[in-house]
């Protein structure tokens, strides 16, 4: 019930924004368009953490089950990967549809990926390992899937730090080069997920396939550009 209510509000706002019925139509790309859609997208991106908080504090029928730390850890990791993949969808989708306004949402999605992955890391370090640094370091060195996850997280930090307009301007052409690291982050992140699964890799395989498609579209578009020029 609570989830349905929370979902209804943004859906209603979306419906009003793109109301084709005539009362008011906002042109995609206009200032008003971003003023309305950005808070909507922002709210939607926060929904998973709101639901996880309700579960963590066992509000009403919400709960994390018998092993709350594991559930929290897995959910945050999955949301981190989802936002990462979503942010990687923007560029090919924009090229395919010609909707240039999409690009204005890429940073927000990328930063939400960083947000969820940071929470995932903190859950691991604080709740799962109790800030026992010896154990954490041993994990990072000895367990390949944790090594990969840590690499992905550490590489995301400079990307988040240089996501501002000021940094984009200051770094110029180097900014794009630096931000290509996101491909390594995504591959390491999905691999980390795949490797952690005990046996049933179906879910992780779906993430890997989505990532493969997103990377292949880039190869494809690049080859197209080369032919054209």
């Amino acid at each position, binding site marked *: 019930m609570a989830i349905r209510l929370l979902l209804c509000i943004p859906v209603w706002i979306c419906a009003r924004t793109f109301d084709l019925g005539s009362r008011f139509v906002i042109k995609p790309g206009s200032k008003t368009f971003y003023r309305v859609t950005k808070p909507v997208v922002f709210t939607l991106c926060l929904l998973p953490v709101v639901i996880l908080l309700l579960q963590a*504090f066992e509000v009403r029928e919400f709960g994390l089950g018998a092993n709350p730390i594991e559930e929290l850890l897995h959910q945050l990791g999955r949301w981190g990967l989802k936002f990462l993949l979503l942010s990687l969808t923007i560029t090919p989708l924009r090229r395919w549809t010609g909707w240039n306004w999409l690009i204005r949402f890429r940073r927000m999605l990328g930063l939400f990926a960083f947000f969820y992955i940071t929470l995932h890391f903190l859950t691991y370090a604080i709740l799962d390992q109790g800030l026992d640094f010896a154990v954490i370091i041993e994990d990072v060195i000895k367990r390949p899937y944790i090594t990969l996850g840590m690499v992905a997280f550490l590489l995301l930090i400079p990307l988040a730090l240089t996501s501002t307009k000021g940094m984009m301007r200051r770094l110029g052409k180097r900014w794009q080069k630096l931000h290509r690291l996101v491909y390594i982050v995504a591959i390491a992140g999905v691999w980390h997920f795949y490797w952690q699964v005990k046996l049933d890799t179906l879910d992780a395989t779906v993430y890997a396939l989505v990532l493969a498609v997103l990377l292949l579209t880039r190869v494809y578009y690049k080859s197209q550009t080369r032919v054209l020029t």
Partner: protein
Amino acid sequence: MLIKRPADIKSSEITDESVYLKRRELLKVAGIVTVGGLIGPVASHQVFATESVPGVSGRELPGVQKSPYSTDQVPNSWSDITTYNNYYEFGTGKEDPALNATGFNPRPWSVAVKGECDKPGNYNYEDLVSPHALEERIYRLRCVEAWSMVIPWVGIPLASIIKQFEPNSDARYVRFKTLHDSSKMPGQRRRILDWPYEEGLTIEEAMHPLTLMAVGLYGRELPNQNGAPMRLVVPWKYGFKSIKAIAGISFTRKRPRSSWERTLPSEYGFYANVNPDVSHPRWSQARERAIGASVFAGKKPTLMFNGYGDQVASLYSGLDLRKNF
């Protein structure tokens, strides 16, 4: 046989009663309110007066006796034990078995007994259970995934059941099979494991007094998601050895290969004794998370043979447990 109580572990070290009983309240404390008296002690030595356990369901089992093999640690809640299960026949998520096994009907049930024994044949559930007294055994359970619970099983020592079949001198191993019927066990439609699930023990392990054929939980009939109508419980081995819904038992000369061993031989061995010194290739086995403890309780050290070393270590004298993991 000398009955020893596990001396290497104190209940107070394992599960803080107040924490276990008031986990929900503790979570609320973290967020909103403070709570006064957290103490809610449970007498854990005696057979459970099941009406006092929140959430129990199923038919009550008559005449259950307590056992000196039980730990005096406080068991996990009914809800923890029945909603957090690894039982891939009903789905690979922890909560899947509780959701997907509701329609499973474990009666009538028969077990096919074969191999090196003098009384093979098809035995009904009643043939196997009614001749014996039911005992409550409160055991620690350590999963290979590095979490643990304390579970008040009801069952019969496996040795008593095995004696009915009169195994001969060639019976060096016992192989167990789970029911193979994808119309009843939807998880078997996906070939993630080589169905049916199979497990094995040496005859000495099978005849050990700690090894239990469980038919109940908290004084009630075993819930479907926990392996109804009968399952193995081998408390010093990782949980996956304790095969559920047993439909076949055979006595063999050769060592059987278990399902996990066949699927991932580098990760799961035949013995699968709980051992903090031998890591799973992908994660450490040195510590475990006690299900039901506070989220801030941290992990606790895992004990050799899950704390049952006094009783079972002699079974493995001379065996390199690093190789025979």
